[in-house]
């Protein structure tokens, strides 16, 4: 067991973790942040995406111990004072989610994508979200949600 300190959604946490414990399970099972989902065991689906110091990371690819001293944002920390984050709002307005299982990962990947490029083209959006899988939406409305969140005029 190793003692680590990290910040999750602005709150400091200190806890003991197993050296092999993945960040996603630290978040889900130790801290009860179950909005971060697990969709695969090969780092392929992106359902577990969180922000680590503002950058999107698949939390199943990172060990809990590597989160020492880092600041993590999960889907639970995105809305503030009951107001959806603009990316969440855009997913809602553009019908960018169906079953919603992939959604926390897509929303956080989008926040990070727009942080890096505030005005991405459709191709840049599609490539930027390549690490996240959705089986329901066919991506069409996810792309529109990202465009809407970027303040772009939407194609008809």
């Amino acid at each position, binding site marked *: 067991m190793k003692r680590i300190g990290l910040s999750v959604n602005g709150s400091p946490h200190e806890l003991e973790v197993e050296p092999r414990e993945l960040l996603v399970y630290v978040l*889900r099972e130790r801290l009860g*942040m*179950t*909005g*971060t*989902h*697990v*969709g*695969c*065991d*090969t780092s*392929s*689906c992106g*359902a577990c995406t969180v922000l680590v110091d503002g950058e999107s990371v698949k939390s199943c690819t990172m060990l809990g111990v590597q989160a020492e001293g880092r600041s993590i944002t*999960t*889907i*639970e920390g*995105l*809305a503030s004072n009951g107001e*959806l984050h603009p990316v*969440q709002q855009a*997913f*809602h*307005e553009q*019908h960018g*989610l*169906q*079953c*919603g*299982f*992939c*959604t*926390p990962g897509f*929303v956080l990947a989008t926040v990070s994508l727009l942080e890096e490029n505030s005005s991405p083209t*459709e191709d840049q*959006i*599609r*490539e930027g*979200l*390549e*690490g*996240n*899988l*959705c*089986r*329901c*939406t*066919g*991506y*069409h*409305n*996810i*792309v529109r949600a990202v465009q809407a969140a970027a303040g772009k005029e939407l*194609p008809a």
Partner: protein
Amino acid sequence: MSVVEEGRTYIGASVPRKEDATLLTGQGRFVENLTAPGMMHLAVVRSPFAHAEITEVDLSQVRAAKGVVAAYSGAELADEWAGPLPCAWPVTEDIKIPDHFPLASDRARYVGDGVAVVLAESRAAAKDAAELASISYEPLESVTDVALAARPGAPLVHESLDTNESYTWAMSAGEVDTVFGEADVVVKERYRQQRLVPNAIEPRGVLVEPVASTGELTLTSSTQVPHILRTTLSGVLGMPEAKLRVIAPDVGGGFGSKLDVYAEEALCLALARKLGRPVKWVEERSEAFLATIHGRDVLQEIELAATSEGKITGVRARLTASMGAYLQLATPGIPLLGAWLYGGCYEMEAYDFSCTGVFTNTTPTDAYRGAGRPESNYAIERTVDALAREVGKDPVDVRRLNFIKEFPATIVSGLEIDSGDFEGALDRGLELLDYEDFRREQAARRASGDPKQLGVGFSTYVEMCGLAPSRILGALRYGAGGWEAATVRILPTGTVQIMSGATPHGQSHATTFSQIVADELGVDVDSVEYFSGDTAVVPQGMDTYGSRSLAVGGIALHQAAGKIVDKARLIAAHQLEVSPDDFEYEGGRFTVKGTDRSMTVTETAFHAWTAHNLPDGMEPGLEGASVYDPPNFSWPGGCHIAVAEVDTETGDARVIRYIAVDDVGNVINPAVVAGQVHGGITQGVAQALYEEAVYDSEGNLVNGSLTGYLVPSAAEVPSYEVDHVVAASPTNPLGVKGVGETGTIASTPAVVNAVVDALAHLGVTEIEMPTSPERVWRAIEEAKR
């Protein structure tokens, strides 16, 4: 697109989804997120062999491992089962249905077949301990390829059956031999519907909580079918149905893969009952590749008889369908869901169909989005292109020549299409594409020898969904009815509660159903509360599959709401001291004709529940219930057009434009419908270009993970151009049709036709799915020879 009719507020409008708030903020109640005090974690030890005798199961090391509570072999749990896992669709009288228990005890019949279980205090401990199981196997000869399994002398999956053939089902209509004998042309094609892995992004999960004092068990499962589970699993466990409650919480996609009764559900129930503690199991993705049903895996031979003009006169189709190692809930019936549709949306005189179901040493197949209909539509739509080549005509013209144009239409296979507009959909599609312009661009690329060539592919389709008229299901030997149940209740405060036996896993039931009821009752959509997916709250239901929720469940709700309006009318008349016939009803308000005196439905609710002043003999309360059995299937149709760009040097094929013009009848929520179409198309494109489950000669699934099995990402597919023609269904009062599967059914042949068309000038006529770069490249090389 907004098509709200006068007098309505919500039906036809893209009402934002009620479901989103929790899902967007990480508050979804998926099984993996749930816990129960004292919960144990289950891990399943699975066979690494495709076919093997289990000679010894030694779990002593497992039991000694840290955190382990118990471990059992299949034989040790044999007494838990009152019966095998169910197959509800014995399609023929003499079908062979081998016993299928939740754990194998003497023989393992596919890689992934469960042979033992471990219960531990944590997920990690259960997983680690499962590795310590020492199981001795005597490997046997296996067969995974359906063509090989069907041959005489093939290794037998179930020795006691003496054959790998489970059933042969056939139908015929018209003078088939004469029509084929007299045809100017007969085109004959063979297609392989590769095996697909559904891959809902949420893997399956199960949590069972026992109440030791009463023997009650609550099963929470990531399932499409809580009601079917309750009925069937109480039978498997030998317990009264009344003691089993089933909950489908938030479910992360299904696509048919969660329309089943799974071993892990039965195991968690049995073990929670045995040990008196909650049991949880969450599937890992690579486990899902083996333990959750697969789709397709069908060989097709199809022949079209036609005149030299390209007028189709008859069709013959022969299927060999892989069942996998066992028959799951609907396995044998899946290929037959397309049995009536091998003639597509075309007129003809003769029809002949047969399907043989064959056991193989593979994961069982069952419903995967479209289920039987993507296969039939693929076969006819590819073969119509082959016919066009044969008679030297444009594929558009051949389709147009053959369309069914008058409705209702009895199709050659005997069912009645209630409505449609195939030609209108085609015309609209061609207009959106600008067909002539496309052919000019294609010709220019060909002329310039551009390595990137363009092709267009059409799929004009019809499908049957909205499962299903109970009488027809009975005639097909399906083990249940096809109705749906609904209850609508207005509370004294005006809050409307709606209950439907159709449960969602992403399809927006809460929003769409609320829209229907809100308009019928004239209430705000936000005052409607939707309940489903819990057999204690909604005891009756036939669940969600086969694009039935709206066309069957939505109508049940509409009718239940109508009963409330009928009762409310009597209450309003009594309160206002007029005759019920004196009212006009619109938007939830009864107005005495020619006056401004009125009362709303919600106002009558207050009177109905206080019951201070009701008509003599009237029961208090304001509630309506309905069980709706559809008189016909639902018949969506339309025209999908794919434009593919194929790199003739690398073999890479991509869809660069996609147009879908669907007739799904009247639309309740256009945004939701478009979302269903987008998702459906993407799964169909995935079959055409990317996905295939591959077994090696030893029976191992060689690409059993998301790194080897190519579920497309956003980078692999384009945005879609979606439009509609509307031929409202006369079968139901809302004029609606199903939409959940149309995209998947329509899209696959459109894409492959487009890829083939891009290479037509090189002489390519066929590329097996998925049309991977290697297959495309080989097809080009072969055509050169």
